[in-house]
């Protein structure tokens, strides 16, 4: 994949990966063995028919290839960029045994971009109107996917979003240099063209309740896709110092509110020529640390309590971060933040960690090494150690069952919750996961909602453990 050179891109917000040219896509597609096993399709959470779309690429039928992907995945330009392919389709690709796997993600992105640029998006026709109204709460990948599938089946769909922009994490979390906002906007526009109604600035649970939607506003079903938006902090001394951010706040200020641009009003800490520490090892941490670099940080340092091998981030993001000059401080964890007399962050006090025995999840749990404390300079710190369920909907919907952590209980196949007419999916059910899993949940929910609206039968099988 051609990309912007590291020394150039670390100072701009333009996309890092430039996309394959036709020639390169053809060369890559020829590497596919068209094997009968179709491991790749089985490895994909939504079962994209990889072999079939790659054959269409080889035949030069790029629009048909895009349509083939869309049968299972309605946001290919997005997943082609952000899916953890190495853990999914590419991770089980047969030719990976003899070198690099087929670059399925790059090919997916190639055909999706081709389709976008051709302007020939073959939007499927909607079924005749059913007269039923469905409310979707949250406009992240789960909500958008569900909305798209439901309008196609002839239902009237209204998406309610708390923020002033649509797209969920795709617009406020994942930065421009990884996922251009133009792409998300285009997907949202397509849905609007298909007839989805979007209402921003509505916080369900505050502006209106789920019961209000069902009983007063005439919606026959509600799909809750509010994500795992609540930031976790480390709960160490000094976290209230000026310059300490949650990843959500830092990324929202920069991505959603464009704090880096002069002609936008939202401010963000000026990290030009400063040292920055980002705590965590996932995609969110990578995004935050690389954003700090682009805002002009002199040194951007990632602090992670395990080793690089355990980092949950996409491999490509780790590679890109290193190339751009991010310093990795692994097997370390902050125990306190230290500031000056005016309350501005100056240093992070860390402790060295060592890996112990594997825990229930199979990951070796890190343990602090007594007496190993040391300090690193940091005038800005970003905490990216995970998020939890957003509670606003649950708090005002008493008959909606939740499980530990406040996540909504929903059946893994039907997405039905404990409350008649209410479905849930995406991060609000599984905990922070991935775009593709959220999309998959949106799909299943749409099928289940359609079935419910058609038959009027609820009878939810008792909620079981969530997918993912």
């Amino acid at each position, binding site marked *: 994949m051609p990309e912007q050179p590291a020394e150039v891109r670390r100072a701009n917000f333009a996309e890092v990966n430039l996309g394959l040219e036709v020639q390169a896509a053809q060369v890559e597609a020829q590497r596919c063995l068209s094997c009968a096993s179709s491991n790749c399709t089985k490895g994909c959470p939504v079962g994209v028919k990889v072999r079939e779309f790659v054959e269409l690429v080889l035949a030069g039928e790029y629009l048909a290839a895009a349509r083939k992907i869309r049968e299972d995945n309605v946001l290919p330009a997005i997943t082609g960029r952000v899916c953890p392919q190495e853990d999914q389709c590419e991770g089980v690709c047969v030719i990976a045994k003899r070198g690099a796997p087929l670059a399925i993600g790059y090919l997916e992105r190639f055909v999706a971009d081709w389709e976008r640029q051709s302007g020939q998006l073959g939007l499927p026709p909607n079924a005749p109107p059913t007269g039923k109204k469905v409310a979707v709460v949250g406009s992240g990948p789960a909500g958008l996917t569900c909305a798209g599938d439901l309008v196609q089946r002839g239902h009237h769909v209204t998406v309610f979003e*708390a*923020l*002033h922009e649509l797209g969920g994490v795709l617009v406020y979390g994942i930065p421009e240099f990884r996922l251009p906002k133009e792409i998300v906007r285009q997907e949202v526009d397509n849905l609007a063209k298909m007839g989805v109604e979007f209402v*921003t*600035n*509505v*916080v369900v649970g*505050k*502006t*209106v309740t789920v019961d209000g939607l069902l009983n007063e506003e005439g919606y026959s079903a509600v799909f809750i896709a509010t994500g795992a*938006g*609540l*930031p976790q*902090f480390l*709960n160490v001394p000094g*976290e*209230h*110092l*000026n310059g300490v*951010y*949650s990843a*959500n*706040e830092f990324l*929202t*200020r920069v991505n959603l*509110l*464009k704090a880096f*641009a002069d*002609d*936008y*009003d*939202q*401010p963000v*800490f*000026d990290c030009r020529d400063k040292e920055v520490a980002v705590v965590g090892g996932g995609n969110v941490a990578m995004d935050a640390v690389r954003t700090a670099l682009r805002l002009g940080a002199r040194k951007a340092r990632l602090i992670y309590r395990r080793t690089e091998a355990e980092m949950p981030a996409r491999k490509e993001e780790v590679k890109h971060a290193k190339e751009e000059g991010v310093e990795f401080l692994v097997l370390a964890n902050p125990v306190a933040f230290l500031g000056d007399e*005016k*309350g501005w962050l100056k240093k992070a006090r860390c402790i060295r960690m060592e890996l112990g025995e594997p825990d229930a999840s199979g990951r070796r749990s890190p343990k602090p090494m007594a007496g190993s404390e040391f300090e690193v300079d940091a005038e800005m710190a970003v905490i990216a150690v995970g998020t939890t369920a*957003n*509670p*606003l909907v649950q708090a005002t919907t008493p008959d909606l069952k939740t499980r530990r952590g406040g996540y909504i209980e929903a059946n893994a196949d039907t997405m039905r919750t404990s409350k008649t007419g209410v479905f849930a999916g995406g991060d609000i059910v599984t905990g922070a996961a991935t775009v593709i899993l959220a999309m998959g949940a949106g799909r299943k929910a749409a099928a289940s909602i359609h079935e419910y609206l058609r038959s009027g039968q609820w009878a939810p099988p008792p909620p079981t453990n969530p997918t993912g």
Partner: protein
Amino acid sequence: MFRILQAQFLAPDVKRFTIEAPRIAKARLPGQFIIVRVHDRGERVPLTIAAADPAKGTIDIIVQGIGKTTRLLNSMEAGAQIPDVVGPLGKPSEIRQFGTVVVIGGGVGTAIAYPTAVAMKQAGNRVVSILGARTKALLILEQELAQTSDQLFVMTDDGGYGEKGLVTDKLRQLVAEGRSIDLVLAIGPIPMMKAVAEATRPLKIPTVVSLNPIMVDGTGMCGGCRVLVDGKSQFACVDGPEFDAHQVDFAVLTQRNAMYRQVEKEELEEFEAMRKKPGSPDFCRLGMQNPQAGP
């Protein structure tokens, strides 16, 4: 888009707006706030809902023009549209019959205290209001509060109106007179709220303050609004904005609110310099949304 139906100045730089927002008007309870964005490159700022009319589908806000966004807002007139208004956010005030409630409003904090004072009166409390302002010109909602209060005192720094002194002077005087006070609600500048908290602490009078930390989303998603209450981190937008005054760490609040002071000062100066020149970009943009038409 949210249309402004009425707009009028109550005091220099303090403007009252009536905005069409039917869902918010219906759902809102005293003590809750909204977040607005006044143009498509604007920042998100929280503002308390001063009043609401669910039948008409309107809410009222009272805005003090202290930064670029609030000054921009205060340059808007009836008929203009605000692109983004979201709410009602935060927990509503705890309203029940306490007995005697002293409501203290400092400056534009009076606008925040006002709806709660009304609800407290309706819940059967004896409401004693103390309003503080630097000068008479800066006093707002005096008549409205007089109507809802059993007693109302006005304190000005210069003594040019009401009595000369601080709101805490009046509070101490009421206590000295042997009035029994069951709850104090104090909303205003941080030093005022801190002073009230210190005055009531030894007397063990339950005291509630409404905090105004920096906010972004207002839904619990960013944690930027975190305040230290009883040594624990709380998100003011979902756990507040009202907290037990005796548990609040006002020093941390003051420190965190200074985070963007320098940038904000520069932005404001730039904006003020620009708006003096006709045809400037920001002002133009709002001007376009600002048809001369009335409500």
